[in-house]
Each structure stands twice: as structure tokens, then as C-alpha cells.
């Protein structure tokens, strides 16, 4: 966990290449491959008659029809609201719990086996138990998302805090910062890069659980949309759901990177300097 990386998105914009041609080339490098893949998909599927692989053009038209014209976007809204609340709750518990476990050694020793059990336990296996505890409805879906997002954040918070240089703690004592100021000025920012890595892993888990939580006992959401399409053999419809989910996943990911890059500017810039 300790060397968990976050993303391949370039950390600093490369300001090389004075000639305009070169700059255009630089700007095009990250986009040509996705565009090429989409083009390949478009042309290869164009003549497809297989019910499982409809032409991309049809899928796109259907996506518009289903999600905009027929108003399936309300599914996305419901799912995203659950994700948002569950994710916030889970990561908050993760950071606070990780901090407590960092501070209280015996709590850490005691809680370790339980936490690892829940961390590696495939969340869908918990669905029946979640229904038993939280009943049917949004609360259960939020609870499942929250429960799943706790662990990556918690473990990374703990790891990040344990990884802070002892010299920095000595410095805090030498400067007489006191407990709370040490926590807010040293411990939290010091562990921030790794907490961010944990938050991102939690987001991935959260999106998966958003879908999983809708597999049982739900009546709206992207997961329901996809599974219902599957049950109806409406494969084109299913493709639209996958497309929307892929879009949401990617968008949330890039949004996260965007926020993280700003919040942890010191970290990325110092690393970029250090490596050059």
C-alpha cells in the first residue's frame, strides 16, 4: 500500500518545444490513440449483425434516446447521489479511523484482523447482511458504498501517517507546536499524498459498489438499468448503460485528479523538481 501510485496523468505540463508544429504534436499525443480506437470500433462494428456487438453508431443514437430523450438520466442522478453521500461518509470515517489507529497503538493491534477481513471481503457478499441490517432503500445502498470506501482510505491514512519522517516530529516538538497544531500542520499534510491515493482507491471501490448495491432490492440507478437491460436481452440498451458508466467513472476520476493536483500542488511540484 505504501507505494501506491495514483495516476499516469502527467504531473506537470511539459513546456518544451518552441516551434508551433511541435506544440501541436505535444498536444495531440494523448488524444490520438483514444480517437483511433474509437474510429476502429466505429468502422469494425458498422456492418455488425451480431446482437451482442451492435454498431457503435447505433449505440450512440440509443444512448441519446435512452438517457436523454427517455429520461434515464434520472437513474444516474439517483446513483450519483448515493455515491456522493456514501463516499463522503466512508472516507471521513476512514481518515478519522486511520488517525485514531495511528495514535492509539493498541487500538491498531486490536482492530487489525477485523479491518483486514472487511477490506478483503468481497463487498457483494455483504449484500444480504446489509439488507438484514439496513432494510431496503437508499440507506442500505449508501451504507454499502460507505462501508466499502472506508478501508482503502483508512489503511492509506494509517500508512501515510506512519511514514512521516521522525525528524519532522522532532521539529514539531522543538518548535513547541502542541498536539492539535501538530496534527493539522504536520500529520495531516504530511500524510496527504497517501491519503489522496487512498481516497482515489476508495472512489474506485465506491463506483463499483454503487453498481453492486443496485443489483438487489433496488428499483432505480445505473446498475438497475444495466441489469434490467440484461434481463430483457436489450443488449444495445446495456451498451448504453456501460458507456454512461464508463463516462461517469472516467469523469469522476479526472475530476479527482484535477482537485488533487491543486490541493497537493506542493507535492507534485516538489516531486517534478526532484526528478528532473
Amino acid at each position, binding site marked *: 500500500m505504501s507505494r501506491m501510485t495514483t495516476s499516469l496523468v502527467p504531473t506537470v505540463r511539459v513546456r518544451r518545444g518552441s516551434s508551433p508544429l511541435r506544440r501541436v504534436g505535444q498536444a495531440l499525443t494523448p488524444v490520438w*490513440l483514444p480517437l483511433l480506437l474509437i474510429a476502429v470500433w466505429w468502422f469494425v462494428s458498422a456492418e455488425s449483425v451480431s446482437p451482442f456487438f451492435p454498431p457503435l453508431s447505433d449505440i450512440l443514437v440509443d444512448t441519446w434516446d435512452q438517457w436523454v430523450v427517455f429520461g434515464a438520466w434520472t437513474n444516474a442522478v439517483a446513483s450519483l447521489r448515493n455515491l456522493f453521500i456514501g463516499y463522503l461518509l466512508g472516507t471521513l470515517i476512514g481518515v478519522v479511523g486511520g488517525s485514531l489507529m495511528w495514535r492509539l497503538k493498541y487500538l491498531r*493491534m486490536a482492530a487489525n484482523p477485523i479491518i483486514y477481513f472487511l477490506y478483503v471481503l468481497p463487498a457483494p457478499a455483504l449484500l*444480504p447482511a446489509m439488507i438484514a441490517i439496513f432494510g431496503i432503500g437508499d440507506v442500505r445502498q449508501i451504507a454499502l458504498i460507505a462501508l466499502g470506501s472506508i478501508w482503502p482510505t483508512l489503511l492509506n491514512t494509517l500508512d501515510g501517517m506512519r511514514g512521516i519522517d521522525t525528524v519532522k516530529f522532532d521539529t514539531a516538538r522543538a518548535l513547541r507546536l502542541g498536539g492539535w497544531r501538530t496534527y493539522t500542520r504536520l500529520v495531516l499534510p504530511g500524510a496527504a499524498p497517501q491519503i489522496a491515493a487512498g481516497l482515489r482507491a476508495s472512489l474506485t471501490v465506491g463506483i463499483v459498489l454503487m453498481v453492486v448495491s443496485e443489483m438487489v432490492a433496488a428499483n432505480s440507478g445505473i446498475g438497475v438499468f444495466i441489469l434490467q*437491460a440484461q434481463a430483457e436481452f436489450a443488449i444495445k440498451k446495456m451498451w448504453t448503460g456501460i458507456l454512461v458508466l464508463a463516462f461517469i467513472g472516467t469523469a469522476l476520476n479526472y475530476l479527482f485528479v484535477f482537485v488533487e493536483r491543486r490541493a497537493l500542488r506542493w507535492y507534485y511540484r516538489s516531486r517534478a523538481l526532484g526528478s528532473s
Partner: protein
Amino acid sequence: MLSASRSWLTWTLPIVTVAAVLLAWQAVTAGGWVSPSQFPTMSDTMVALGREVATGRVWPAVGATLAGWVIGMVITILLGLLIGTALAFNAFAQRSAAPVIEIFKAIPAIAILPLVILIAGSTLPMKVFLVCFAAFWPFLIQVIYGVRSMDPIVLDTARALGVRGARRFLMVSVPSASPYLVTGMRIASAQALILCVVAEIVGGAAGIGRNILLAQNTGVVAYPTMYAYILVAGILGIALTGAFFLLEKRVMHWHESQRNIRESNKVGAA
């Protein structure tokens, strides 16, 4: 003497907590706080677990889940090493591929699960495909990072000493990137196991997940069995993760992080 008492605590404390949690479960369910139609008692679950183990029904399920996991992991690791190394050595290829990797990584494997089930059915290949899809992207990123973050001095040293070719790859490049590789494998392993079980639960492929599903479909009488299999899934997860931690400890004994861990264990952690 202080450290002796501490090491004593390090192994008793977890056992005590596990026991406490199990007892609390028993108390809550047997004491009638939670209806047995919603949650079985701990003792019933343990009896069911014992029965599944005694009759041997649990092993084919574990075997089927593990089969998907192993095949998926092998493919993931081989492909990841190959493609990751190739990408890491070429800045252009890497910059081109980065968005594609990011997008695929962001697609929850669960989203394509229904489609894969429709296309491949509830079979082992379906499970393996999903496992690879879930584990490959994060592992690939780790490989790229590992190869890329290699200290230039490490490579310069090899050149200065006249170490070349396969010897350099095996004795210098791989060990140098190994911290990232091992971490990547551990993350991939957890993802792979989760996807295996999900594929079984949703798609009904043979394995622990399907046994959970079948027990769930059977109704209240089978709840203890269902929770027994949930326990099995968790224990398998701990076993696999633990195995990777051990591997890391053995293979990476020379690495700073492992040395720090040893150090902090010795002194008793800050």
C-alpha cells in the same frame, strides 16, 4: 521486559478482539435483538461452516474461485510486465497510452459483467476475463511506475561495471522495480479475488460466490450456510493477501520499507 510484554500483546490482542466480535455476534442474535430470519447466530453459522467443511462441499467451491483467480493473475502479471516495460521505455507510447489506460481503469469491471455474462456465459473464461479486466490496469500502472522510477545511478552503475543484456535485466532492472511490482501484485490480487466472487454471485459461475447465491435463494433455512460461505470468502481473502505480504517480506527483505517495518517491530513502533 517491556518489549516482551509488547510482543505478547501483539498476538493476543487480535485474537481477543476476534473472539469479542464473534461473541458479540452471538449475543446480539441469540439474545433476540436481531431476528434469526435476518441474521443467523454465530453458532449456527459455525455449525454450517463445519458441515460444509466436513462434507467437503466447500473445497470445490474454493477450488473454482481460486482457479479463476490464479489464471487471471498469471495472465495479468505476464501481460502487465510485457506491456508495462514496453511502455515505460518509450515516452511517446506512454503518453499516448496513458488516457486509454486511465479510461479503462475507471470503467468498473462490474459494468461490463452483464455483457460478458451474455457473451461468454457463466463460465471460467468469463471469470478470468473479468479478473484480468479488473486487475490488469492498476498493475500495468505499477509496472510503468516501477520501471520509470528506476534510479538513473542504478543503471549508470550497471553500465560502468560492464553489466549488460539479460544479466542487467534480471539482476538490476527487475530487483530495482520490484517494490512497485510486488505492491502492484498485491493490489491486483485483492481486485482479482473480489471480481471472482462478484462474477460468481452475479453470473452464477461455479465458486464460493455461487454457493452464497444458492444459499441465499434457498431462503432462511440456508442463511447459516450463506454466512458460512461469506466467512470463507473473507478468510480466503486474508490468506491470499497474507501470502502476498509474506512474499513481499521475503523477496523485499532488503528494501527500506521492510527494514523500517523490522525496525519498528523491534523497538515497538512509535
